[in-house]
Structure formats: C-alpha cells, structure tokens
C-alpha cells in the first residue's frame, strides 16, 4: 500500500446527513429545559458608559437572570479574554489592553456585549432586553485604518497596537538605491465578513461541579484552556465538545465572550443555558477578515530580476486584540512574503491599528492570501510598467527546481516545487494562446475582457503535532478518534477511507470520533490547511502499532515466529498457514483471548516540516462598460498539492476557496460609516457570491510530492482563496488597461467599476 492511500474520489458520506436535515448542530442538541440567552450589545461604536440599569429587565416575564460586568465582578470572574501579542521592532511586546467579557466602563464597537438576559424563551429575553436602560456619553469613533484619531486604549498611543518589522531594512534600502527599475504600488485588501452558514452558538451545563460547554468551534482544547483560565477550574472539571459545525474559516477558531458568559449564567442558575447568534448579530460580533492596506515596492536589475521587495502595511485589529489578531498580517503574512520568487532581500513592516470596529483575525488563509495578493498584484503592475509579459516576469524570477530545499528570506524551508512546470501546464489548460481571439469576441459584443494570473504559494500552518486512536468495538466495528475537527470539509469520509486503505477495515465499519475533550486528550483542531496531513500521519503511526501488536498476538496464538507473519493492507498472512485473518478478525480473536490491550491503539506524531502547496489561478473576466458589472467567465486552476488523498474533495476545497475569493474580489464590500455603524449588517446590503456569480472552475493537478510527510501530500483547504484574489484583480486590470486605467482595487462592485471607467473617459476627453 502506498502511504498516501488509494487516492480515490470517494463521495462524502456525511453529506447525506447534512442534506437531509440530520446534521446535529449545536442548536439542535441543547439539553431539554435549557434556558435561552440573548446578548444585549452596544448600539454605538465608542462611548463612556454612564449607567446600566437592568431592574425592569430582571422583573420581566420569564426572565431568570440578567448579567452585567458588575455581576461577573461580584462572581469573581475578572479574567479577560487572552490574546497573543507580537514583538515590536524594538523587542517590546504589542499593546495588550484588557478585552472584557462584558463591557465595563466603555464600549468600543457596535455589537460589543454589554449584558446577557436569560429567560424561558428567546422572545422573552429579547422583550426584557428592550427594558435595559443603557446610558452613555458618545465619543468620536476611529474607523480609518491609520494611526491617530480618538484613542481607544491608553496602552496604544495613536491607536497603534504594534510596530512590527521583519527583514534587513538597510540591505533593502541599499538594493533599492542600486536598482535599475523600481515599481511601487499601494494595494488595498478589503475587509470581509466571514458569514459561515451556521452562525456561532453554544450551550453550557454543569453537572456535579463539572462544566460541559458545547460550542461550534474548530477544536475543543484551546477553548478548554480558556475556560480553565477564566473560571480557575481544574482541567478535569471541564468538558468541551464541538458537534457538527457549519463552516468556520478561521473565524470559529477563536474564542469569544459568549463562551464564558453562558457557562457562568448556567452555573448561577443551576440549569443549562443556550445561545445562538442571529445573522446581523454574527455580522457585528464575529471576527472579520483581511482589512489592510500595503505600500509595496519591487526593485529590479537591468535584466528584470527582482533584487529586493519591501512591504509596509497598516492593518486593522478592530476594537480589541482577538486571539491571533496581531499575528495575521505579521508572522503569518511573512511565511510567504516573497512567494515563489528567488529574492533574499526583503522587508515587511506592519503597524496594527485599533479602530471602533469588530475584531479582525484569521479568515481562510490568514495572512497568506493577503501576502500573495500584495505580491502578485505588484508583479503585474511591475510587468506592465516594465513593458514585459507578466507570465514571463514570473518565470524569470521563480525559484528553480534545483534550488530546493530553499530557505526563504523570512526563514521558511520550502521542501520541493516546480513552479515553471505548473505555469506551463496552466498556460495550456487555460488556452492563453486563444485569449486574444476571445477578447476580440467580447469586444464585438461591447464587453471588455481581461485575463489575470496569480501564482501563489501557501505555507501549511497550525500545530504540526496530532493524535490518533483506533479502537475495536464489541459490535465488530472500529472507531478512529481524531484531534482535528471537521467544519464541513468531509473529514469523516477522508479519515475513514484513509484508515480503510491502510488496514482493509471496510470504511462503512469505521466511525470517526472528534470534538470531545473527554474522549480525546489533545488535538490541534482545524485550521491552516493542516487536518488531512497531520491526521493521516498520526493514523499511519497508529496503524504501525496495530500491525505490530496484532502480529505479536498472532505469533503467540499460532505459535509461529513473528517474522513469519506479514500484513498486506487487507489480511495477515502466516507462512505455511491457511489462516489469513483481517484486522477485524484478529481484533475478535484478541477480544476472545481477553487481550483488552489489543483493542485500542494510539499514536502521536509531529510533522518534520511544513508542506508548501502552490499553483496557478487564471481568471478571465468580462466587464459590461454600460453597467460596470464584472463577470468571471472562465477560470482555470493548476495546483501542486502533492499526492491527493481524495482528489474530488481536494477539488471541492478549491471550488469553495475560489468562491470566497471571487466574493471578496467582486461582491463582498464591508462599509462602516464615520460613526462606526456597520452599514452592511445584513444580506440586504452585504453581497455574498451566489451560484450564478461563479464560473465553472476547471482544476488540474500537477503534483510534486512533499518530502515533509510520509504521504507526500500538501494541504489544500485555503489554497483556493489564496490564488483567487489576485487572479481576478489582475484580470480586471488587464481588461481596463487599454481604457487608460492603470490601478484597480477590490471590491469590483458595479458602481465602483463604472465610476473608474467614467473617470478614465473624463480624463481622456
């Protein structure tokens, strides 16, 4: 058996459950009799709280409890929500202002939790919330992603949370001084609202002093640690579970105030309490994504080889630090700062800005789409200014295959890659040669057509360590316990199939168990495109133990030398014997022989290094100049994901990623007004991409197997989004270049595109 399995396009078994209403999401499985919580949130972006009277709300029908910051204080819950702090250029740590569970003296964004009402029904809780008297003196809001403005926190002068730098600035400046050509650009990366199909929710129940929090997260262990920290409980006194989860995208990887307030309410009431976010509430309270602006510059020698790259970014953190907020546009951006190009002289400088908006943190790709977007836009601008073909400029600067393993300027060790080969493949598959004819055809119909390329590389993140445990059950089935967490990606199918490929246990006899801190001691959850790589490696190690254990058992049972026994991925073979038991049959034999120790095997593994999926996205777009509508009409992807464990699911991940990329590029447009009110707080104003906004995405695999895991695979969960943004944006630039438009920024909404076309017409006239 190959270590990467049989690479079959097995259909997702969990979809039958999801598509027939049999999914068990957090709000489906709240305990009987759970009370309903409703969160009263700040209606203003920035204000000093002068009064908070909940007397009438407490007296309202059906109300059991109203919690405020003062009540939490009285109960001894004074810990805030933790966030990691980045190092500033001077070695000090970034600002770490307290992020309270419920607002204390000030509110800093619309949607900040102020009080929680718990009642028999959610309608009663809402009725009561209308009786809360919330008095405040409004302050000016700071909503622009730039230093200055009214201070949010005393810890952050001018609202600058950190000043990060990575690279040798002197060397970069010298390279620019000696450059034959310098190309600069300012590149905006627009804010998006994550919009998971299932909003956030949780419920909590205490039994004999032990807390069970059920939450739709991306892993249970970080959340458990958070509860240990806030409640001061022993780890054994806390159980956290994640049931079926309807999309996370990094947004659900982080912790939120509700996940502490709801357990506290349940503790005070001695009854289970449930909370489920509504859509506008999600838009106001879920971590947002992207939201940065970068000034970038490329230095070239006379032969158009890049000699240095410099990025200076301002990024939005929102009102408080979310858990990883300070790391996204800094450390994570830096992972792929220089992309696929052989350049060792680079600089990344980032200032993180507090604003009176909802927190900003990881969103599908988390820093890497942002880095690739900035770089791949810059390369396109450069090619146009230098008067060379953007594809050839990339080809000329690629890291060559003979340079691997390649240590990047920011310290990543790329294991393998053959970027030119992938580019050549996509050039043919996308029929680049036929583009001029298609452009002429579009023009005949009054449309502007453009073709855009993005060559991306991704760095797989998340914990490299993972656990697996396989048990043989009395009913003749097997279970695999995993430390990852499906948010809908198809893990149940992939993990069962992989174990089946390696052991011969039929996939339909394998159940995948995830998301329960009582059943699984440690794990890394889902995030950073890590799951299948880390989980499969741990599964392989578990299977090795299983084979060894069963071989020894059979040797003793059959009185043969262990070396006379082999396992061929389906059956054990014993030299000179007709006995050829399957794994399940050996487990039965072991059970009958009283060997309980042979009914459970576990292993933990750590990847020796990260994998670096990469590939090329080629978008073709058409603009209707009469209306400014941008339509993606052709889309071709060629990816190097290494070996594909399940090609169909890998391609599905690309489709979803491209959809989210096209969404950000064309339809998703977050707008705050100067007072910090979110104007796009429902799907009436926030445009998610729809099926008819999506082209048919054609996908090709051009694998160069990774050397950093036994399967030779590379993660694929985020790659689609990483590639899509610049491909679409570069295509739009290509379409309007001949109209005299030399700079375009997302989102390409009809009104914005029409407006730049009008401005160009005006300038030409």
């Amino acid at each position, binding site marked *: 058996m190959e270590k990467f399995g049989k690479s079959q396009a097995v259909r997702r078994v969990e979809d039958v459950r999801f598509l027939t209403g049999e999914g068990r999401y957090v709000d489906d499985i709240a305990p009987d009799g759970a009370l309903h919580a409703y969160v009263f949130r700040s209606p203003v972006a920035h204000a000093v709280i002068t009064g908070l009277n909940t007397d009438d709300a407490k007296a309202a029908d059906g109300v059991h409890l109203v919690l405020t910051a003062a009540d939490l204080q009285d109960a001894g819950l004074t810990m805030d929500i933790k966030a990691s702090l980045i190092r500033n250029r001077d070695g000090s740590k970034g600002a770490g202002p307290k992020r309270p569970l419920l607002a204390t003296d000030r509110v800093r964004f619309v949607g900040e939790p102020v009080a929680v009402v718990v009642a028999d029904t959610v*309608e009663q809780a809402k009725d009561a919330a209308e009786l809360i008297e919330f008095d405040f003196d409004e302050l000016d809001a700071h909503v622009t992603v730039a230093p200055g403005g009214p201070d949010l926190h005393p810890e952050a002068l001018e609202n600058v949370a950190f000043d990060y730098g990575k690279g040798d600035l002197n060397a970069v400046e010298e390279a620019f001084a000696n450059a034959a050509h310098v190309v600069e650009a300012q590149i905006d990366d627009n804010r998006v609202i994550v919009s998971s199909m299932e909003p956030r929710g949780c419920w909590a129940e205490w039994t004999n002093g032990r807390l069970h929090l059920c939450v739709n997260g991306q892993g249970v262990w970080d959340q458990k640690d958070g509860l240990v920290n806030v409640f001061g409980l022993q780890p054994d006194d806390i159980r956290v579970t994640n049931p079926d989860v309807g999309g996370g995208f990094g947004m659900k990887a982080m912790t939120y105030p509700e996940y502490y307030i709801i357990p506290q309410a349940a503790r005070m009431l001695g009854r289970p309490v449930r909370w489920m976010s509504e859509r506008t509430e999600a838009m106001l309270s879920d971590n947002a994504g992207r939201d940065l602006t970068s000034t970038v510059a490329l230095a070239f020698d006379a032969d158009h080889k890049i000699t240095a790259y410099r990025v200076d970014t301002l990024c939005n953190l929102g009102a408080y630090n979310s858990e990883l907020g300070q790391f996204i546009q800094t450390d994570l951006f830096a992972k792929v700062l220089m992309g696929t190009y052989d350049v060792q002289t680079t600089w990344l400088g980032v200032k993180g800005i507090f604003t009176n908006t909802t927190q900003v943190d990881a969103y599908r790709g988390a820093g890497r789409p942002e880095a690739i977007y900035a770089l791949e836009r810059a390369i396109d601008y450069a090619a146009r200014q230098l008067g060379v073909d953007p594809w050839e400029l990339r080809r000329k600067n690629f890291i060559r295959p003979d340079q691997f393993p390649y240590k990047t300027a920011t310290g990543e060790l790329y294991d393998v890659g053959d970027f030119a080969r992938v580019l050549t493949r996509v050039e043919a598959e996308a029929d680049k040669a036929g583009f001029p004819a298609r452009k002429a055809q579009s023009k005949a119909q009054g449309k502007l057509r453009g073709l855009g390329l993005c060559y991306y590389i991704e760095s797989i993140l998340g914990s490299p360590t993972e656990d697996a445990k396989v048990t043989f059950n009395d009913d003749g089935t097997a279970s695999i316990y995993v430390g990852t967490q499906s948010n809908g990606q198809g893990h149940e199918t992939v993990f069962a199939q992989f174990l089946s490929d390696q052991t011969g246990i039929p996939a339909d006899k394998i159940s995948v168990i995830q998301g329960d801190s009582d059943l699984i001691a440690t794990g890394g959850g889902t995030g950073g495109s890590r799951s299948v790589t880390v989980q499969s490696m741990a599964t392989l190690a578990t299977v090795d133990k299983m084979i060894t254990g069963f071989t020894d058992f059979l040797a003793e049972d059959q009185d043969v030398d262990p070396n006379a026994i082999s396992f061929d991925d389906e059956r054990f073979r014993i030299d000179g014997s007709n006995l050829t038991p399957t794994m399940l049959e050996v487990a039965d034999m072991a059970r009958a022989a009283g060997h309980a120790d042979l009914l459970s095997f576990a292993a933990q593994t750590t990847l020796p290094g990260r994998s670096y999926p990469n590939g090329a996205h080629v978008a073709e777009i058409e603009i209707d100049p009469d209306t400014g509508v941008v339509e993606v009409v052709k889309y071709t992807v060629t990816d190097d994901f290494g070996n594909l464990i399940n090609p169909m699911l890998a391609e599905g991940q690309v489709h979803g990623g491209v959809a989210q990329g096209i969404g950000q590029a064309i339809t998703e447009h977050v707008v705050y007004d100067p007072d910090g009110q979110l104007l796009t707080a429902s799907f009436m104003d926030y445009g998610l991409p729809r099926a008819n906004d999506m082209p048919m995405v054609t996908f090709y695999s051009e694998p160069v197997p990774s050397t950093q895991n036994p399967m030779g695979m590379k993660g694929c969960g985020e790659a689609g989004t990483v590639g899509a943004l610049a491909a679409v944006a570069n295509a739009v630039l290509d379409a309007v270049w001949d109209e005299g438009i030399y700079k375009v920024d997302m989102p390409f909404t009809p009104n914005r595109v029409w407006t730049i076309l009008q401005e160009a017409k005006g300038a030409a006239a």
Partner: protein
Amino acid sequence: MHNFDFVKPGTVADAAAALQGDEAQPLGGGQTLIPTMKQRLAAPETLVSLIGIAEMQGVCKTDAGELSIGGATTHATVEAEAASLFPGLAGLAGRIGDPAVRNRGTIGGSLANNDPAACYPAAALATGATIRTDKREIAADDYFQGMFTTALDEGEIIVEVRMPIPEKSNYQKFLQPASRFALTGVFVAKYADGVRVAVTGASEEGVFRWTEAEQALGSNFAADAISGLSVSADGMINDLHGTPEYRAHLVKVLTGRAVMAAA
C-alpha cells in the same frame, strides 16, 4: 417579534372593519412586514390578513381590455396567469425576489408599501394603472407620492389593480448586488396613443416617469430615439450600492434595453 393578534377575514368589508381597531395593520404576503416585525421595528397589535378574501385573488382580462389583478394575488400567480395576456408584467413578477417570496408576496402589498426599490410600482405607473380600493379608484399618476408614501388612507385596502394592456412592454431590472432588489428598474409600455416609461429604484421621490424618453419614444419606438437624452443625477438615491450619477446613467441604459427587448 412582539406578540400580536391575527385575523383572516373572508370579505373586504370584514377586513375593513377589522382594520378600524387600534394598531391594526393589513397583511398581504408579509414579505416586508414580517421581517420588520422580526427585527422588532414594527409591532402591530393586530394583523389583518387579506389573502383569504376570494374577490382579491386572481388575474383576468376585463371587457375593457385591461388586465385585472386581485390585490392579494401573489407574484407567482401573476407570473403564470399574465404570461400570455401581458408578458411584460409576467416577466416582472417572475423576477421579484426568489420562489419563496413570489409564492407569498402580493401585488397589493407591494403597491401599498411602495418601497423605492420595488418592481411593481414601475409597472403600475408605466401602464397608467387604476388602483381600486375598498373606498375609491385612484389613478397611478396620483397614487405614488414618494418613498413609502401613497395616496392610501390608514386602513384602506387595495382590492384590485387594473392595467391597460400595452401593445409592447418590457421591464429591465438592474440588481442591487446583495438584496437583488432593483438598484434601478425601468418599465417601458407602448400603447397605440403613446409610450410610458416608469423608473423605480433610482429616485429619492420613489417611482417616477421619464417624460422626455416617453416623448422621444412616442415618435420613434427604438433604443436610438433616446441616445441624445440624459438623465439628471439631482434627486437620485445615494447609497453604498450606487451614486446618483450611476443611477441616472442606469436609467438611460435600462430604458434602451427595455425598448430593444420590447420592440
């Protein structure tokens, strides 16, 4: 949503009587009112459903050659039943919202609400429709009085809408990218004695007639006829989906497309 009482009368008279109560509000398909109530922005004490009134249902052609539509007729019914009699209107009805909205929303509800981005007001104004209520008949030119404002009195019920059937007609809607309401929509209706052009979604005053285009198209019903005209951005809606200039421009683009599609 706050608690409320619900009544579903079977006659217009009973409905009118029920609407005399304090804080009573008529309910058509509820496609605007129910979400508004869910957001707690409206809290009527009594909802008077109009969809159980038989005389307010259905589509037919009158002896005078008009299309008669019961006030509580759903968009889906108009789409189906007007298809051969008045395809321009059926096309409009079939592109309102999504199937769920079309199976609940009613023409009377749309006209009574007079959302500046609604589709039906454009058809009613472009056809010079007559709005018959439980009290009187109102000409479309007098009926629309600005955003969310109509000639209807409190508690007055739209029983029937009668539209003269044009020789040719078409509705062009430019979708607001998020809501899929009309960012701007134009209904063009050609009659033997002239052309009427009504614009929705664009103006701060709600639906309006583009009379210059009507005159130009009256003498030459071709997209070219309006090529020399322009629409002023003054008074056009400015929001995050469209500037006044953009909307004014769309009025002309969509009018041209509607004429091409109708001709």
